[in-house]
């Protein structure tokens, strides 16, 4: 049985399903499951958002999800099931952008594995967010540069202590 499942859900085809994620990471050996759900919210940096479009380089993103999962499996001794899903396309307020679930024997590993994977996906996946505002304007969000490290490096090195320093200069770009 596979220990992880990764998924890119084009909004044209369906929605991310937290119940299916929970079911996938459930196991008779596991006592703890932690799940993170990222939703589109109505306000960002004080601007009223009407929706978000997610652009994604799908093959590389799926490759990265698999690397992130393999790293987590190694870090948590293989006693781990993981689900990583991210939406693609135009989302409205409240739509699910991202679902990550981790099942492990005990709760501490479940919390840590889920957080580690969420941070790695956010900081290293080739995914771009364009926010649409109520005034009709649209802006591509500032983000984390992939120049200084590969996804695997970032995940291994500093996913928990990410400080948005020099290599992630969140600057003045639109």
């Amino acid at each position, binding site marked *: 049985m596979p220990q992880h499942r990764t998924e890119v859900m084009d909004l044209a085809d369906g929605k991310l399903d937290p119940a299916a994620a929970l079911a996938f990471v459930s196991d008779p050996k596991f006592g703890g499951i932690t799940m993170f759900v990222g939703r589109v919210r109505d306000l960002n940096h004080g601007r009223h958002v009407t929706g978000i479009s997610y652009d994604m380089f799908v093959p590389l993103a799926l490759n990265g999800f698999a690397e992130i999962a393999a790293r987590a499996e190694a870090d948590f001794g293989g006693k781990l099931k993981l689900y990583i899903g991210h939406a693609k396309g135009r989302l409205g307020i409240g739509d699910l952008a*991202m679902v990550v679930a981790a099942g492990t024997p005990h709760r501490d590993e479940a919390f840590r594995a889920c957080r580690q994977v969420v941070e790695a996906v956010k900081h290293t996946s080739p995914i771009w967010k364009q926010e649409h505002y109520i005034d009709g304007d649209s802006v591509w969000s500032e983000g984390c540069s992939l120049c200084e490290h590969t996804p695997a490096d970032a995940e291994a090195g500093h996913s928990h202590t990410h400080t948005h320093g020099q290599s992630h200069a969140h600057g003045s770009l639109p």
Partner: protein
Amino acid sequence: MKVELSLFGAFRQYQPSAQLTLELADGACVADLRDAVDAHGKAHWPAFQSALLARSAFASDTRVLRDGEVLPTDGKMAVLPPVSGG
């Protein structure tokens, strides 16, 4: 060699087709591609910002390539501005 570059994120606003074909010398590396994109942007994209390109990575379908690496022979590449998923 012909390089077919896929554009993502903020680069889509420079070129809505999200595809750019560039001619580079055989054996060119990522740094050469980066220079070619910069030259193309300055010549053809009024809103182009070199600073965005400087913070962007280049990748094949399977991995990010560093500036010194040689481009894959199939010429299929992508330019990845800073990411903002989740």
